[in-house]
């Protein structure tokens, strides 16, 4: 499978980049705050997949820890923004 690994990542990764571009359109344009937060969530999850794909492409385990933090960060953003919208205070 030596030659096919790069080929698979090169076929798959542009789809994720294209999706991130479309999500960024919604993040900038989004008429309300929940729209922008939802788009930021989707970008964070996409970025997690993209970073693990980079770890496969460059054959290094160094890029494999950040996606876990990214996923948890998206959840934190959800919780804080919803708390603020629902009760008008963050209250950390």
């Amino acid at each position, binding site marked *: 499978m030596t030659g096919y*690994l790069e080929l698979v990542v090169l076929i798959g990764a542009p789809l994720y980049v294209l999706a991130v571009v479309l999500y960024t*359109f919604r993040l900038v344009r989004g008429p309300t705050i929940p729209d922008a937060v*939802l788009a930021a969530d989707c970008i964070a999850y996409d970025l997690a997949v993209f970073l693990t794909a980079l770890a496969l492409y460059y054959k290094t385990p160094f890029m494999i*820890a950040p996606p*876990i933090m990214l996923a948890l960060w998206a959840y934190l953003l959800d919780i804080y*923004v919803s708390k603020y919208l*629902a009760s008008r205070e963050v209250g950390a």
Partner: protein
Amino acid sequence: MIEPLLFWIGSAMFIAGGVFDFIAALGMVRFPNFYVRLHAATIGAIYGAVIPLIGISLIALGSPEIPARYAVAGASFVTALIILIVSPTGSHVLAYAAHKSRAVEWSPVVDHLEEDEEK
């Protein structure tokens, strides 16, 4: 012997996840209001992130030339599990807050939650 099988199953999951993610992004751009866009966002989170991460974990298990391939496989599987737990919770909480703060302008046919809150 089993490594090519793992590699090709993982590759299929990775590329299919990319297609699903692109479709979800199209829906995110085209759908009319926030509550409909939640549908596209959830497709982008589960089919567009969890499935490809499990696929990447299978690819890593099936490629002996990657150094520390078990670390790569385990970490991407853990990320998939975290997103599987966290993403539905986050969208649910966000939908509740959007309805509670009346941030979204929409004209629903029926809205039982608002009727209950007015009582």
